[in-house]
């Protein structure tokens, strides 16, 4: 009989056992997760001033230090697991997370390290977001730059984040808010309550005030309450999620990424040298991230590139979750895998598209293996960028490949989270850096999932949470107040 561990709601420092619970099977343990009714979240926000006061008792520098200490705890420490006194080591976390989400242990560890790196590199991350403002800006609101007073003030009293379950690494996005002294309220994804809970425990153990962190597993309605009542909200989801919240300027939605790799005409002859970049862009993290490439644009040699790439992708086979080389993720909900497979097959019936990986893989796309349901990597060649399979993305290693002249690539992009442009063509690079459709741009042989801590990523959290105000006059007292 597996042990049952109860994850309480963390009501800004106060654990709360709800009577509504979600039961999850996490392998060796059973989880019961307390669910917050929407009003409970709004009610807690009525007392958000004390959460902010708790943060104000720490300097931003000290909070950044807490983050760095939390990095070590998150990756290597034993931290409270639920409210029953159990401790969760990193491998406990990896095994349970894998059982809940279908992510292989390798990817659970990689995501844990990614989040740990974000904590460890917090000063660099924040410098990237603020373009080098000193951390004191979060203590006083004011700093001097070239003899000019620069004043930033928080645009909201708190940040609400409705997290997804598909990739634990996205938790790195909200972490800087803790140093910005903005209380953070988290709604975990249904299948991954563990990552945000563990992060909160690591931050608290490192010295961070628990009153400034909320953990609210809840329903969709509760998610609305959290996003709408926090002043600023971040949600992850599909195009439908984007449409749902676009009427609220305080809510930023990370929708489908539609990230792409573009091959320049100047690098066309060298495509074979960079197959690894293409494979990694498509398949890293099991193809689950919005920063995975879902489309490739090439200026020629389409069929040769497609065949070689398909051969590499088709070699990625489902493995047991604890296999040291596992890369593909099982679907927590097998119905979702079946629906995706059916949709791809239906669109393949439309003229102008071919699943090139079908030539090379050892069986159908949809496969039951190692007690899970998988979708094998899929590369579809499309004659036209308007084909329904050409500009879409799915939660597994999937990409389309379209041939077009370089001059047509940028007009064909559409909103794109990451572009990796394999080129050295100065003129085209100028067009790329000025293209409004691209959120993050890699120039050269870099996969789309590349992270550079000093650069803002997936929306600038600082710009989302703070506004600049003109400040002039007698500012001497400000210095005295800060001292």
């Amino acid at each position: 009989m597996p042990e049952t561990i109860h994850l309480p709601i963390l009501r800004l420092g106060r654990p709360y056992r709800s009577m509504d619970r979600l039961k999850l099977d996490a392998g060796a343990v059973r989880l019961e997760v307390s669910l917050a009714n929407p009003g409970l979240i709004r009610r807690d926000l009525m007392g958000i001033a004390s959460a902010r006061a708790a943060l104000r008792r720490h300097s931003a520098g000290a909070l950044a230090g807490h983050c760095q200490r939390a990095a070590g705890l998150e990756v290597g420490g034993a931290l409270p697991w639920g409210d029953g006194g159990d401790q969760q080591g990193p491998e406990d976390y990896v095994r349970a997370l894998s059982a809940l989400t279908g992510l292989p242990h390798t990817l659970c560890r990689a995501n844990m390290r990614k989040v740990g790196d974000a904590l460890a590199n917090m000063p660099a991350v924040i410098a990237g977001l603020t373009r080098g403002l000193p951390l004191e800006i979060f203590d006083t609101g004011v700093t001097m730059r070239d003899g000019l007073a620069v004043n930033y003030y928080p645009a909201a009293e708190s940040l609400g984040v409705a997290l997804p379950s598909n990739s634990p690494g996205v938790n790195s996005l909200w972490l800087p808010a803790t140093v910005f002294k903005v209380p953070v309220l988290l709604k975990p994804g249904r299948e991954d309550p563990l990552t945000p809970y563990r992060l909160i425990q690591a931050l608290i153990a490192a010295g961070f005030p628990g009153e400034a962190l909320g953990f609210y597993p809840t329903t969709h309605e509760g998610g609305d309450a959290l996003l709408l009542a926090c002043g600023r909200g971040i949600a992850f989801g599909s195009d439908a999620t984007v449409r749902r919240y676009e009427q609220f300027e305080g809510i930023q939605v990370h929708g489908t990424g539609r990230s792409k790799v573009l091959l320049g005409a100047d690098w066309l002859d060298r495509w074979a040298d960079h197959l690894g970049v293409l494979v990694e862009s498509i398949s890293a993290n099991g193809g689950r991230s919005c920063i995975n490439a879902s489309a490739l644009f090439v200026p020629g040699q389409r069929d040769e590139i497609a065949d070689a790439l398909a051969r590499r992708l088709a070699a990625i086979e489902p493995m047991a979750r604890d296999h040291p080389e596992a890369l593909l993720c099982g679907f927590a909900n097998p119905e979702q895998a079946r629906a995706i497979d059916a949709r791809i097959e239906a669109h393949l019936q439309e003229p102008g598209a071919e699943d090139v990986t079908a030539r090379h893989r050892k069986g159908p796309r949809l496969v039951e293996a190692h007690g899970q349901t998988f979708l094998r990597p899929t590369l579809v060649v499309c004659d036209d960028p308007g084909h329904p399979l050409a500009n879409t993305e799915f939660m597994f290693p999937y990409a389309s490949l379209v041939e077009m002249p370089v001059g047509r690539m940028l007009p064909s992009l559409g909103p794109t989270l990451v572009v990796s442009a394999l080129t050295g063509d100065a003129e085209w690079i100028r067009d790329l850096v000025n293209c409004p459709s691209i959120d993050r741009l890699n120039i050269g042989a870099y996969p789309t999932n590349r992270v550079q801590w000093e650069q803002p990523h997936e929306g600038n959290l600082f710009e989302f949470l703070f506004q600049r105000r003109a400040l002039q006059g007698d500012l001497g007292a400000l210095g005295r107040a800060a001292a």
Partner: protein
Amino acid sequence: MESGAAMNMESRIEGARARLDEHVRAMVEWHFSPGTGCPYWLDWARSAGWDPREKVRAFADMRRFDHFDDEVLRREDPARFVPAAYRGRPYNIFETGGTTGMPKQRIGWEDFRTDYTEFSEHYGDDFFPKGGHWLMMGPTGPRRLRLAIEHLANIRGGSCYFIDLDPRWVKKLITMGELKMVRLYQDHVVEQATTILRHREIQCLFTTPKLLEALAERISLVQAGIRAVFCGGTTMTPQYVRFLIEEVLEGSVRFAPTYGNTLMGLAISRRLTPEDNFSLTYYAPQPRAVLRVVDPKDPDDEVAYGEYGRVELTTLTREFFMPRFLERDEAIRRPACDEFAWDGVGDVRPFQSGSRPVVEGVY
């Protein structure tokens, strides 16, 4: 002692059952006699080919009727439901539904007063302080509730202020994905209530659970002088009830949750005990209305105690006859208790709410 109490309970249940059977005979006699019945049911009996007055002698015989089709209440002119005995007396027209197309309409004269007088008598003088003024924040318009709450306030010696909310518009906004407008509308409603509470002495409140929450996010109900809240409208899970009692009502404002609608009247919830763990159980105003929890696959049969089933409503008053209407709700069948000698319905929620999305809105 215990067996004595059990026997006493048994005889109370038996007594209630006998009163119900007697009431069924009287109501069937009334509605299917040409001198007293209404055109709709008299015509129905002619085409059905059997006389309910002969065949229905107890509540168990009600199964001879098919489940009432509520489309009838949209299709038929309300005048077809005027009993001959009431002919010539103007009636109230009450509506339910109507977000799209025709609403369901029920006519009435005194039923709402009877129902709410009984509700008032169930609670003592102190629960809703006698003489205290009321505020109703919720759907008024063509609903029975608006007149009923005013009657309730009046018979307890108080007057009632009203803040309207149009649930049809709210449902439409939700269906259109206009979340922002829903919030603005809710703010507009709650702001009006806050203003009244700040400027007038009010001790009793009727509202819906969600509006109650929203109101308490703006002001402390305790500090505003509210002593008791009468609440009904949407699903209240045990966690939600606990949250309302402990936090929204600050553990001190008295709470009277009810389940009801235009077709039934209102079912009162029994007093919560620690053993209930905040799970509500409602009891129909029997014999005027009867709630059964039936097997959705075979609605002739009731489910066992403690199990979920679909809620079936039978209304039996001189003004309105409605046999075996299957509600859009499901509930747990619960046994009789000290306060009510007949079955109750527990933890009511929308029918099959576990398997499909349900729009419940802010009201």
